[in-house]
């Protein structure tokens, strides 16, 4: 094939509908109904407090996985990836580290409507979560009916290490309890 002479591609556009694949849960797709709950832990587990969202999500899933249809996902970057990770689920809980100026260990809950971008829900390589969510809607991706975001204030984000700072470690069990309670309430299990 090398060096073969070829004319420029024709400007005919592809037939879009044929290009769009069938949907799968946990991935993106069209026209599928949603079911179950996904808990998404965001952040880098190798960057100190940045990994707190991943740890909390894993702990919540450990408590609930035998009681309901619950999937846990670890995600390093936000934006379009985050929207894709919640596609196909009825409910989504996102847990991330936060750097808002509050005391380290502070837990905050956000609804999508008053959503504040937490540390990893924005992707500098594509877009923020709100835009990604709207993009998904536009593309017919089956997105959750309920979404909540939890932010845990961290202190150290720039140091490689697998340990949390003391305040963040101390806040972890309380964050797990509150998120477990919310999911139980959603599921009507209380």
């Amino acid at each position, binding site marked *: 094939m090398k060096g073969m002479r*070829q004319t420029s591609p024709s400007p005919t556009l*592809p037939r*879009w509908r044929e*290009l769009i694949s069938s949907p799968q849960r946990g991935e993106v797709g069209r026209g599928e109904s949603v079911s179950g709950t996904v808990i998404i832990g965001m952040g880098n587990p190798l960057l100190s407090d940045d990994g707190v969202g991943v740890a909390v999500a894993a702990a919540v899933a450990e408590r609930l996985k035998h009681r309901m249809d619950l999937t846990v996902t670890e995600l390093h970057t936000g934006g*379009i990836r985050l929207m*894709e990770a919640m596609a196909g689920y009825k409910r989504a809980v996102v847990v991330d580290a936060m750097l808002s100026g509050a005391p380290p260990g502070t837990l905050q809950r956000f609804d999508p409507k008053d959503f504040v971008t937490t540390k990893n829900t924005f992707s500098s390589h*594509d877009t923020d979560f709100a835009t990604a969510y709207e993009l998904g809607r536009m593309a017919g*991706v089956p997105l959750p009916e309920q979404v909540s975001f939890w932010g845990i204030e961290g202190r150290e984000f*720039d140091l490689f290490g697998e340990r949390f700072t003391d305040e963040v470690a101390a806040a972890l069990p309380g964050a797990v309890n509150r998120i477990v309670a919310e999911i139980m309430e959603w599921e009507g299990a209380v």
Partner: protein
Amino acid sequence: MSRITIDPITRLEGHGRIDIFLDDQGTVENAYFQIPELRGFEQFCVGRMAEEMPVITNRICGVCPEAHHLAASKALDSVFGAEPTTAAKKLRELLYMTFFVTDHTTHFYALGGPDFIVGPDAPSSERNILGVARTVGLEVAGEVIACRKRNHEIITFLGGKSIHPVAGVPGGWSRAITAEERIQIEGAARKNIEFARFSLTLFEKIVLKNPVYLEMVTSDTYLHRTYSMGTVDANNQANFYDGLIRVVDPEGNEFAKYHPSEYREHIAERVEAWTYLKYPYLKKVGWKGLTDGIESGIYTATPLSRLNVSEGMATPLANAEYRRMYETFGCKRITAARYEPIHHRLATHWARLIELLYASERMLELALDPEITSRETRNIPDPARFVGVGIGSVEAPRGTLTHHYETDERGVLTKVNMIVGTTNNYAPISMSIKRAAERLITSSAPDESILNKIEMAFRLYDPCFSCATHFLPGKMPLTVSVRDSQGGLLREMRRKG
């Protein structure tokens, strides 16, 4: 002296930003670009077993884990003296092409494209992928999502895990593919080729046919005559997975060609007192400050520079597009297949789409290769051939990525060094920002569209802020502080999403 700060990464530690200094006449005196530095990576790795590196380094960056995974795997091949089987090399490259398709597609539609498709002067709330879909058609949104989906699925089974691949091992790849999986890959590659061609058509219609944009792309606002770097195969054609590093000078003459393991003989890092960023430069040319030209050792490692060093593209459709780009810029041929380098930085967006088409075509070639379903995916390392030093390199979407490991006789890491894609481009990014600022800022109170055009100067490099993600609400926030010669604040503007 006034100072304008563009702060696209408003983390509270506050060292990710652009600083533009104005003199008393309000003209740009200097511009600097800084991104946050992570600490302790080498200490984190030293003392671990070297074979952990492909799964540790793929977490350094959530944006290009595949690039780190492969550079690490290649470094381990050398550490353990285990040359991968040809099937393993093809599987690695296949995973990599699949990743390139998703990465370049996402960049064009979500980051680079909106400036052209929606317009550089459009309000920031419109200048995003939603604005692209509203302008071009809602189906495009669906196709971007579908493209990511079909390729992510392949990366997941080919790499053994979603997002962070785990299949790379010293001497090869731990997972073969089945005949059914091969068929799925072939189908996806064919769709990728169609979408890449559509994207190039879109670029032509919207950018090249628009005199205003064409003027912007070909103006000297975004022009720097630096050396170009990229990885080439035995035919001196761009290859993202493997080959030799080729450097051409600003005129297009080959300046150096070397094995990635010789990088220290060719690349040095400049430390400046005013920043902790280290600027890589060509050792044999020397550091002359943040300036371009043949006397300055500053080089660029981007999609455009990879095309500048390449004797055409190794796949036919991409090669036709390659020729069209250089001929549009009026570049003369240097060899039978190569042209004078393009130094207009906004052409990087075009080059990225040509690479997208190449990656799609190469993915199809590999999917059609009879050896791709071979079970011979690994050479088990022989302890007698253990080396203890390894340097592995790939072309990350954002530039040449080099991993360098040294171990003791047990394979425990004693030294780790990396040059990541964006690092190569620190000096060109700084220069591009300065040039754009010089040309565009005419007062100490520039408006938002001017600031966006300055942002475009670094967005075209797709600099990797992965480790320095954003905090404030909305789209990429932008803080501009204008200061007088005493550092007093004259004016502050903050753009939220």
